[in-house]
């Protein structure tokens, strides 16, 4: 099946979506994190009445506003792409995306945009407490906006709380709470939010370091650093904890992604964790080509321990998942492909029976989609059916990219924790700013959380390939059959537009930072 699909169309469509999502994600984490830091600074001002805190709040609020304005509605383009480039997908997921995004539109966006105006225009116009409430509600509104899209993403990674309606070819929600409170969704939200707080903290510390290096606005910079460092330490610890939970959930629900991010080909107990590694492509082994380490530093037993809290836990490798491992209960992909093909064929026959008004056949086939045993035996493998006649290795994500993105994220995460602790400790001792090299480290560290955050999403989205909806819908089936040239054209339009917007963001931010907290 699907032998005829133009892979350049799939690649360009994926590239276009990745470009849009990654550009959108430049702004979102800073908005999420900075909104809370601003609200916290605003609270200190209201509680102390100290005018310096007002200046501090207004300055960071200004940077928040610039980021919000440039970033706002860049996510809408993703929704355009769902309807045009991914029409099969957007229909198939049904109200899973519709309901959460409608709630976002009606509730969170309304809340955010109402209170953001009070936050910016409210100085000396409304009471201090009401103004402060608006700052906090803006922050909570921003996080609420994030919840819904993350819930939808979590469902794509781990579809729960829905049933497939074969007459309408869509998934229908049967339990809203299962969808929004799946452990995947809850943890994804927490990990995203805490890592965004961390990103904003490093941003504030970095800008403050710039002022300290120039010996400008020293009190402003020191106070900003203290607040950001407190946020940073708490957020870094929370990010590590939620990241660990993410890994445990991934090992259970997406074992292929888990094996790919560690480049683990052969499953084992006492599985080590690769701390650092460099890979090369080997074309001589089974699953050719496969990635082999030319250099690695391992922590013995750590991978098994991370997932099962015991070194005896078995971690399946890529070959266990592809060729099966009866002892550990992993069905070979060839078998899953066969079962998936049966499910697709059943759906096809159901459609035909309906068209020719063959009630008896229709009822028999329709019943299968309500039978839990058939669903578990066949429909569960639906997506694999598209790979009948194709190479089984197409079901393996890009191992190198998964490995490197995971390790870049984790190594940088460790750096942020140490960096935030140092910034906090030295700030509390009133020694932050005494060491020029540390301020330079703060400046150099500033863009790194964006790299870590984007790497995290690369692992999340590329690591689950070839699936758009995990094990049910592969990317090749989700894409709309457009001309590749059309997708290429919009790709380049986006690239040009995003580049202009990004330059505008940097330019306006730099101008306002240069003016400092006293500038207009």
């Amino acid at each position: 099946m699907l032998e005829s699909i133009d892979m350049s169309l799939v690649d360009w469509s994926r590239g276009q979506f990745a470009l849009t999502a990654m550009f959108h994600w430049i702004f979102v984490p800073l908005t999420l994190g900075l909104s809370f830091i601003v609200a916290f600074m605003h609270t200190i001002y209201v509680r102390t009445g100290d005018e310096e805190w007002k200046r501090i709040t207004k300055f960071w609020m200004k940077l928040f506003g610039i980021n919000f304005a440039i970033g706002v509605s860049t996510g809408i383009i993703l929704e355009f792409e769902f309807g045009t480039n991914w029409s099969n997908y957007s229909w198939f997921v049904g109200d899973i995306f519709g309901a959460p995004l409608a709630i976002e539109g009606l509730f969170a966006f309304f809340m955010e945009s109402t209170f953001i105006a009070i936050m910016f225009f409210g100085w000396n116009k409304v009471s201090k407490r009401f103004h402060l409430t608006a700052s906090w509600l803006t922050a909570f509104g921003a996080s609420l906006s994030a919840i819904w899209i993350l819930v939808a993403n979590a469902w794509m990674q781990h579809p729960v709380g829905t049933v497939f309606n074969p007459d309408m070819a869509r998934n229908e929600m049967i339990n809203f709470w299962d969808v929004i409170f799946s452990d995947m969704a809850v943890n994804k939200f927490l990990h995203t939010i805490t890592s965004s707080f961390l990103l904003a903290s490093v941003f504030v510390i970095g800008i403050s370091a710039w002022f300290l290096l120039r010996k400008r606005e020293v009190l402003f910079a020191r106070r900003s650093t203290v607040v950001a460092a407190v946020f940073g330490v708490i957020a870094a610890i929370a990010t590590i904890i939620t990241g660990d939970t993410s890994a445990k959930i991934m090992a259970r629900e997406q074992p292929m992604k888990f094996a790919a991010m560690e480049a683990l080909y052969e499953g084992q107990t006492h599985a080590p964790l690769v701390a650092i590694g460099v890979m090369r492509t080997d074309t001589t082994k089974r699953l050719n080509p496969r990635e082999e380490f030319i250099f690695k530093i391992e922590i013995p037993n750590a991978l098994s321990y991370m997932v099962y809290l015991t070194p005896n836990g078995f971690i399946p490798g890529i070959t266990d998942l592809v060729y099966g491992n009866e002892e550990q209960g992993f069905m070979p992909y060839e078998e899953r492909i066969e079962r998936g093909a049966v499910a697709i064929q059943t759906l096809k026959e159901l459609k035909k029976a309906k068209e020719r008004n063959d009630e008896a056949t229709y009822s028999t086939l329709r019943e299968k989609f309500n039978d839990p045993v058939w669903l578990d035996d066949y429909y569960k493998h639906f997506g694999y059916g598209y790979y009948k006649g194709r190479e089984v290795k197409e079901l393996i994500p890009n191992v190198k990219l998964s490995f490197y993105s995971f390790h870049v994220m984790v190594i940088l995460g460790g750096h942020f924790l140490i960096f935030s602790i140092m910034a906090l400790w030295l700030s509390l001792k009133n020694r932050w700013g005494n060491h020029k090299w540390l301020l330079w480290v703060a400046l150099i560290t500033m863009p790194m959380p964006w790299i870590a955050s984007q790497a995290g999403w690369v692992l999340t989205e590329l690591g689950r390939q070839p699936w758009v909806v995990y094990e049910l819908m592969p990317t090749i089936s989700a894409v709309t059959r457009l001309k590749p040239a059309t997708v290429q054209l919009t790709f380049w339009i986006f690239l040009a537009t995003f580049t202009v917007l990004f330059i505008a963001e940097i330019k306006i931010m730099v101008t306002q930072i240069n003016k400092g907290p006293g500038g207009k």
Partner: protein
Amino acid sequence: MVRRVFRFYYDGFRKMTWGRKLWGIILVKLFIMFAILRLFFFPDLLKRDFDSDEERADYVLEQITNP
């Protein structure tokens, strides 16, 4: 009340300094998105090409079972 709210927003926008440039960017961006990209490049294909949900379902079923 309505008057006060209007006045609040009116004064806020009128006294904007650096915010004017941002509003300019937002408006240009929204124009490009909705008046150009949405209109000419990103139609909702299933909405545009079919009249009912049954027709859309039929089309998608055809696509995902006969690739």
